[in-house]
């Protein structure tokens, strides 16, 4: 039976009196890739930070594998991985040292750490530079190190914030394959992205966030039915729902003029 691995109920975040995320209710099941979409400033990163325990919600709850992230953070975090959009790493550690550190933090048994680290370094093409300090790595290389570190402890839930930014096409493709393989094995994948093509091709379901509220969720097909324009791309549906279609109209009018 498909179990719910990410669940939020009335998740709200306010900075002072200003609500940034408003009563978010969503569920992501085992084996599902969920695309989290929304215009800039919609509250996507704040939501992810609450799901990962980086921020305490003002109201509501977030459950990861049935563990409340606020009340049982250690259990929830040990089953989860997070790939941020800006990979902040220890500049003075090498990639290999970093993977060993993450393994220790996530309590990966010592007898498998070395083998798994080498496999992941190899998978992401990092082996040749694995002993160089991370401060000398490019953005894309750092992103690969973060991805490798996110996989080393066999997470049941993986949250990714704009994961393909800075990756070359080959690495982006590899990432998509890895995420699909994880979902196939029963993990829940939560991806926040602006690249709607990725969401359309890869995600089983998507949720659209606007001004802190989830305005739509479902499979791309369900969203098409909801908007009433069948056959349109996810980009058109997104623009329709978020009000960005005005810009599309404007651009269209240029061609006509």
């Amino acid at each position, binding site marked *: 039976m498909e179990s719910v691995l990410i669940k939020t109920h009335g998740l709200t975040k306010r900075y002072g*009196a200003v609500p940034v995320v408003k009563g978010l209710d969503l569920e992501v099941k085992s084996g599902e890739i969920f695309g989290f979409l929304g215009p800039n400033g919609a509250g996507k990163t704040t939501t992810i930070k609450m799901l990962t*325990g980086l921020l305490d919600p003002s109201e509501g709850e977030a459950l990861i594998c049935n563990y409340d992230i606020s009340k049982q953070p250690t259990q929830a975090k040990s089953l989860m991985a997070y790939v941020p959009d800006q990979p902040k790493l220890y500049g003075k550690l090498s990639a290999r040292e970093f993977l060993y550190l993450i393994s220790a933090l996530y309590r990966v048994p010592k007898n498998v750490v070395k083998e798994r680290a080498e496999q992941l370094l190899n998978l992401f093409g990092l082996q040749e530079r694995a002993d160089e300090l991370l401060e000398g790595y490019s953005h894309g290389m750092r992103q690969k190190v973060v991805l490798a570190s996110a996989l080393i402890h066999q997470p049941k839930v993986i949250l990714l914030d704009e994961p393909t930014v800075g990756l070359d096409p080959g690495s982006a493709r590899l990432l998509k394959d890895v995420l699909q393989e994880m979902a196939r094995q029963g993990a829940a994948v939560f991806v926040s992205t602006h690249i709607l093509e990725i969401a359309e091709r890869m995600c089983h379901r998507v949720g659209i966030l606007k001004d802190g509220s989830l305005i739509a969720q479902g499979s791309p097909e369900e969203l098409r039915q909801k908007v009433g324009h069948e056959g349109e791309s996810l980009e058109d549906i997104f623009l329709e729902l978020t009000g960005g279609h005005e810009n599309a109209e404007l651009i269209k009018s240029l061609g006509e003029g």
Partner: protein
Amino acid sequence: MKILLPPPLESPPPEQSFWQNFLLLLGNQLRVSWNKLRHRPVGALMGMAGLLIGAIAIIASLGIYAYGSLKALSPNTVQGFLSMLFMVGLGAQIFFGITGAFVALYMSDDLELLFMAPVPIKAVFAVKSLVIIGSNFLTVVLFAFLPGLFCGLLFKAGVSFYILVLLVGLGLWAIGTAIAELINLLVMRIIPPHRSKEAIGFIGALAGIIIAISFQLPNMLINSRNKFDIGSWLEQQKQMLSVMKFFPWGWGSSALVAGVSQNFLGGLAWSLLILLVGILLFLVAFNLVEKGFRRGFISLSQGERGKRRKAQAEEGSGKLQKAPSLAFLMQDVVSPSSPWLGMWAVAKKDLLSMKRDTREWFGYLVPLIIMLFFVGQFLFSSVKTSGSTLMTVLIMYTIMFSGNMALQSFGREGESDWLLNSVPLAGWPVVWGKLLAAILPTLVLMEALLVGTALAIGVSKTLIIALVVGAVFLALGSSSIGLFYSINNCRYNPDTPQQRIAPGASLFMYLINLFFILLLALGLTYLFLPSELVFALRDLPAVTYEGGLRSGLFYGIYLLSRPLLWSTAWRVFLGVIVTGGIWAAMFFGFMAATVRQSRKGFRVEIIAGRKKRSR
């Protein structure tokens, strides 16, 4: 390639104790610190060793001086002295602790990563707190442990006394660090994350000035040895010292004085009190910082604050939103505006950047401090300097300072150098814009300093006007040299964004500026006749060229000195030609060379750590 991934975990791995997590994180922190030290350039390590030797020398000299002065004093006076030292130490701990806490908590890149890991947040903050405590180690050694040790040696105390020194030292250490963490909590709230590096630069510069001033202490003490006696001064401050007993630094001194007076239990009570207060304050600070981060009181990463969002939301709701229009994209081609506007845009961009980056302001503080030093020496020192010497120093400084400020110009572009290279402004609009931005704040400051100093030391009005006009030309000439070296040798290091020039180029710029001053001085000598020199020249026998470099040199100088004996009209005429010619040749020559380079394109060299990053 087939991807082989181990299946996801079904249940969380067994939990680790707080202690295990703490040791793991501490081990990681130590590894990072070790790697940092290991990959530091040898030059930097040698510099650190030099600084350490200097600091030890100063501590030793101050210690010997204080130790000698206190030998003849009663324990009560020593108590006052210790109170003072502990108080200063606590102040220093708070100041440096704020910097340490700011770097360890607010500027740390690993907090997000560690908060995500399945380790208790308290373990993360325990390690971070240890780092902050470590940043106060030297201060507490200097201002708590060493004075206690000296006190024990002075009064030949027993071994048990040093237990009190340890307790008092630890207590003061905990109090200083806790207060620093608490103040830092407010600082982190006030300063937005994107300005954190700027803030740390500002605090660092302030610390640098304090350290530079404290390095003058031994010299000041040596100079005033006959006038200043710590013992008698302390005797006069009895009332102030008695108030100190109500504060932790007073408790610390009471504990140590009780210790040397064979009242160990009394000393133990005071030292335990101070330690308990320290632990309590530290726990409060620890919990508040942890809660602050967890509840979003302090942002972990860059982003808008609630306040700003609110303001924007209100702004948006108050105004009628205009429908966006892209019609401008279809307009006919319009003629480009004047390049003067482009020049002003470049200057304005730099001026705004200087105004908005507080680290830039410290560059302008240096001449202020130097001026204060010289004016103070002129007005109050027993070793009198003449007014003309003071003005010469300021003019020399105007030239060097202008050159140095212009030297920063192109490096300021940092990673955005592509912009000025890609806009259709390359050449004189960019270079003159840069010159304007470099020279405007410099001129305002240096003119104010020159006029202020000239008025303070009573220089005539005519001379003040001459100085004001002269300073403009000198600053322009010097800045053009600075700009030329800047465009050819600019660099940018994200870790030290204020170092924008290759050190060799900086040295060359100073040498060329000195040469510029030397040549200008020749022309100015023709204009403002030095009577002593003329008197000496009249008695000088005729010099002839007899071959060789030395003779050539003497003959050259002889020829150059001849116009000093000409009639006033011819001499002044030649003076104007020489001074104007040299200034124009240097200024327009260097500007033309910089414009030529701007047209070819300039590149800011990016330095990351030890490695040069190519783009």
